[in-house]
């Protein structure tokens, strides 16, 4: 019952490569942010979060913590995504794991998008970034698009669940 996906092996390696790169960059980012209390005048915060310099203020600390949570959430969803793709390659289709992973991934995407929107609003209100950034509608940057992706993954999980039921039924009939 294993899908024959041998010609697609390069895709698997490419996804692993992407995952490694993202992990390395996020690790550098988080270490950079965690080091800022020791170097308050450094430009790391200004570059990453738009905060001019570090101070022990509630708003700045909350912004840093929520940014780290967002990054870790992103890494975790990428990890779930990678596991799901590997399972689509190597395991039987419509497995329980794939159904759960798709649902989890969809929920994670929606949750992270909501947190990111709150984070953006909070950061704009606190640090007064008045410059209008425009609506990024023509790209995957758009929050509406990310919401669609999250819902699509949840729906896909539902479809996989149905397909699994039908397959099991067919196997019993035979």
């Amino acid at each position, binding site marked *: *019952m294993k*899908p*024959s*996906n041998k010609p*697609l092996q390069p*895709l698997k390696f*490419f*996804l692993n490569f*992407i995952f490694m*790169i*993202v992990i390395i*960059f*996020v690790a550098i*980012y988080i270490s950079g942010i965690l080091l800022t209390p020791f170097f308050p005048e450094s430009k790391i915060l200004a570059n990453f979060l738009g905060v001019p310099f570090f101070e022990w203020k509630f708003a700045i600390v909350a912004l840093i913590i929520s*940014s780290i949570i*967002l*990054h870790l959430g*992103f890494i975790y969803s*990428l990890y779930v*995504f990678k596991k799901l*793709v590997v399972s*689509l*390659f190597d395991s039987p*289709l*419509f497995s329980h794991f794939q159904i759960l992973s798709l649902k989890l991934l969809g929920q994670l*995407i929606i949750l*992270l*998008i909501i947190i*990111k929107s709150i984070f953006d609003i909070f950061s704009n209100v606190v640090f007064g970034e008045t410059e209008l950034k*425009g*609506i*990024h*509608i*023509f*790209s*995957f*940057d*758009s929050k*509406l*698009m*990310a*919401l*669609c*992706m999250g*819902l*699509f993954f949840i*729906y*896909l999980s*539902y*479809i996989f669940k*149905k*397909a699994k039921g*039908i*397959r099991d039924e*067919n*196997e019993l*009939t*035979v």
Partner: protein
Amino acid sequence: MKSFDIKPAILLKTILDILFFLLIVSYSGMILYLIYQTLTDVPLDLKVNGNEITELSPAIIFILAIKILISAIFIYIIYLLRKVVRSFFKRKLFTPLQITSLNLIGQLIIIFSLTEVLTDFFLSLSLNKARIGISVENSFDSIWFTLALGLFFILLSKSFRYATGLQEENELTV
């Protein structure tokens, strides 16, 4: 093709419809604005990815044309996604339409993200603001995630194709 008892994704369909409508409206607005700019002597006031464009050189016109083209590709991706989601409303799974559309969506997402990165780079280059480096954004708009998403859609299409074979085999056996 056997029909299944599946619930339609009404929320997903509604959000996709809203997104599609917004995209069509802003695309038409963008085209009309560019036509208006070309036909009148009003000074150019265009901002693309934070870069202000005040005069049109042949290179910038070419890059803007590519940008308009890839925006159209993005609209087409959303259109295809809508079509796939709507096809689930007919309570049929693994149809040739779903397989072909998912494969096409994957390929278009990859083409879209690569072209977007290249045009952004060349736009900065033509405005003498180019920087070379790899950046990893903290969200689902990152180029790496978008590429992985494209690959996932292609893989999903292969899985659907495999499931069709399985389904036909099962139906024959029964």
